Structures are given as structure tokens and as C-alpha cells.
């Protein structure tokens, strides 16, 4: 008698497949978890890296707060899609209770700017940088609306907040990477004029984090 080997047909079992699916789920959750900036950017309704800050990969950097903790000068394009066009300086003021976010302060500054444009008055928190500012003499450049605004803002902020030299006294600059050094340098020089009250400026940058 010949025996026929009874070969069992191997088939995929359900519990094993469920195990694999759960593993895949956990794997996806861990590795594709959203980063902090992405979460906040999504709350703001925009992507974190949309503002064209300088990108640096290796540097000793510190955390940049979304909530304003000091005076911040934001230099952006008037038209975000035109990266060769005119720039605008926005003065973003923090609140006393450190509760104003960068975006809120920016919207306030833009609202004030638009209202001022309509009424013909001088905006208090924003000024356009003239296209030809690089060719202006130093005196003419310092007399532009943007520089006047920067100067007055720094002066007011120092008078109200910085009384003694301190490590934490600083002015922040958040500028698109193509901003010419002249404008950025002006902010730094103005900040440095107050003896030792403002020992440093803080630049916002984009860094690849691990």
C-alpha cells in the first residue's frame, strides 16, 4: 500500500496578520509623528518653513518662541510671491504678560499699517523700505521711515523695559534671508547705542533639527 503523504496547505492566519497590522500602525505613529513646529504651524494655518529665513545646518542655536518675549523686527516681502520686490519692516511688540504670539502681533501691525494708509497717517508698527535704500547716503538712509520707526521703537522699548545691563536684554530680528546687511546692521547698531543695555541681537533662522 502506498501512503500518500498528506501535505497540509499552509495558509495565512488572521491573528498573525492582525499582529503585523498593529505593528505597522505603531511604527507609523512613532516615525511620522508631527513635530512641534508643524503642529503649531497647522494651528496657525501655515507651514513652518514658509517664511524665508536663513537656513543653517550647524550652529549653536536656541529655541525660538512663538510667543513674543521681546521686541522683534520682522523684515518681509511686501508681496510674498515677489522675492526681489520691496521689503517691509514690521515692529512686533510683546505684551506685558507674554501672551501675544508672533502671528498675532504681525496681524496687529499690518492692520495698523492698512488703517494708516487709508487715513494718510504714519503707521506705528510697520514701514516699507524704499527700493533704492542701498544707494542712499547714510544720512538719507537714517531718515527713511523704516529707520525712523526702528530707532523710535528701540528707544521706547529700552526706556520701558531695559533698566540695567543684563544677559537677557535682547532685540530679535526675523528677516527673510535676502535682506541686505545694511538694514539688519542698522537695527544692530541702534541696539548697541544704549551702552551695555542691549548686549546682543537674536536672529531667527531655520535649522534642521534631529
Amino acid at each position, binding site marked *: 500500500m502506498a501512503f500518500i503523504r498528506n501535505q497540509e496547505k499552509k495558509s495565512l492566519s488572521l491573528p498573525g496578520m492582525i499582529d503585523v497590522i498593529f505593528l505597522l500602525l505603531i511604527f507609523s505613529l512613532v516615525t511620522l509623528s508631527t513635530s512641534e513646529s508643524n503642529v503649531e504651524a497647522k494651528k496657525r494655518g501655515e507651514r513652518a518653513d514658509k517664511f524665508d529665513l536663513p537656513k543653517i545646518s550647524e550652529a549653536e542655536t536656541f529655541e525660538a518662541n512663538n510667543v513674543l518675549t521681546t521686541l522683534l523686527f520682522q523684515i518681509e516681502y511686501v508681496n510674498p510671491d515677489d522675492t526681489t520686490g520691496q521689503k517691509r519692516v514690521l515692529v512686533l511688540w510683546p505684551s506685558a504678560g507674554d501672551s501675544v504670539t508672533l502671528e498675532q502681533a504681525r496681524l496687529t501691525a499690518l492692520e495698523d499699517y492698512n488703517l494708516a494708509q487709508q487715513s494718510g497717517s504714519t503707521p506705528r508698527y510697520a514701514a516699507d523700505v524704499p527700493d533704492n535704500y542701498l544707494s542712499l547716503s547714510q544720512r538719507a538712509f537714517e531718515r527713511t521711515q523704516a529707520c525712523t520707526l526702528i530707532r523710535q521703537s528701540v528707544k521706547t522699548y529700552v526706556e520701558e523695559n531695559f533698566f540695567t545691563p543684563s544677559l537677557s536684554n535682547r532685540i530679535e530680528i526675523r528677516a527673510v534671508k535676502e535682506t541686505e546687511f545694511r538694514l539688519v546692521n542698522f537695527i544692530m547698531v541702534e541696539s548697541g547705542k544704549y551702552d551695555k543695555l542691549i*548686549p546682543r541681537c537674536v536672529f531667527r533662522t531655520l535649522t534642521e533639527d534631529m
Partner: protein
Amino acid sequence: MIHTATVEIIYRLISDMNTGKIIRRILFFTVLLAAGGLAVYRNYEIRKIPYEKIMLNASEEYSKILIPPRPGIMGITITGEIIRPLVFSIIGKATVTALDWGRLGNRAVVKVTATIDDKGRVFITEMRSGGHTEAGLLISEALQTWIYTPYKTGTIKFFFNLPSKGRKLIIDTSGLRRRNDIPPEKRVYDGQLYYINGIKSTDVGIGSFL
């Protein structure tokens, strides 16, 4: 526990295979090695990442507020090289031979006049050894091997006066001049001008012959 379970699973898996014993053994150890290597590599990569960055919930950002010195804008002084004093002395080379003071005897009186060229080499121009030929020979053999640092050139005189109760060796350096190509602000000092074994430093005088 996970590792033992994994090994157990792999073992049982391979045991159930319908292959030869040797092949199963090879397969088992291959898989074990691969898994072990992967685990080691994973641990190595994770150790490279700072602890704060692998935490899922970053609690506090470690911030170092370091205020560096501030740049001055009124002119620049760029630090230059240190002005190191130059020492005119015998260079310690393997070809430089020491003169054995003990072999000269007690009665040797030898006057040697030599020139030092711009490479620091010694050339004997005149030797007066009187009746002390052997001492003269020993002195000239040693002196010709001496090499000085190339900071001075000119005439140097050695007066070996062993019977003397005072200085037994006088070295006259008045004929030496610093080289013209050495910048004037660099000072040239005299260092070790002789290479003699067995002589006391109190027996040596550096000055002019009478």
C-alpha cells in the same frame, strides 16, 4: 526578554524547516549574527543622538546664554604674531661634538680665532696652541663641528687657559654682529656658546680679551 523570545522564535522557526541539520545550523547562526549586528548598530546610532533629542516629550530646553565680547566699530587692531626673542646658541644636533675638558690636560694654553658664517657654521681661521699640539687638535676637532643658530655672524675667539686660577675659558663675542635681515624689533640674546663636557660654569667667562 525580547531578545530571548526572538532567539526562541527563530530557533523554532528554523527547527520546523525541512532541511538538513547543518544547513539549519548555518541559517540559525547567520540570522542570529545579522540580528545581533543590527542591534549593536542601532545602539551605536542612538548613542550619537543627544539625550534631549530622543525624548518624545522635550520638557525643558537647555539654553546657554553666553554673551561674547562685543565688536568695536572705531578702527580695527588685528593681533599679530608674538615677537619671540632670538637666542644665539649652539644647536643640539647629532653631528655636534662635545669637547672633553678632562682630556686637555692642566697646562694647555690655546687661542682660537674662528668665524661664524650666516648658517651658523664655525671656521677656524687662526690657532695658537704653543707646545700643546694635542690639546689644540682636540679643540679644533670639536669646534669645527659646532653649529650656532643663524642670528649672528663674525669673529669669535676662544682662549683656553687651563693653568689659570680664574677663568679657564674666555669666549670673546665682541666680533659678532647680528644679521642684517633680522627685523630690528627682534632681540637677539646669547645662549649656550660652548659645548664642553666636564667644565664648570665658573671657569667660563664671556667677554673681551685683554
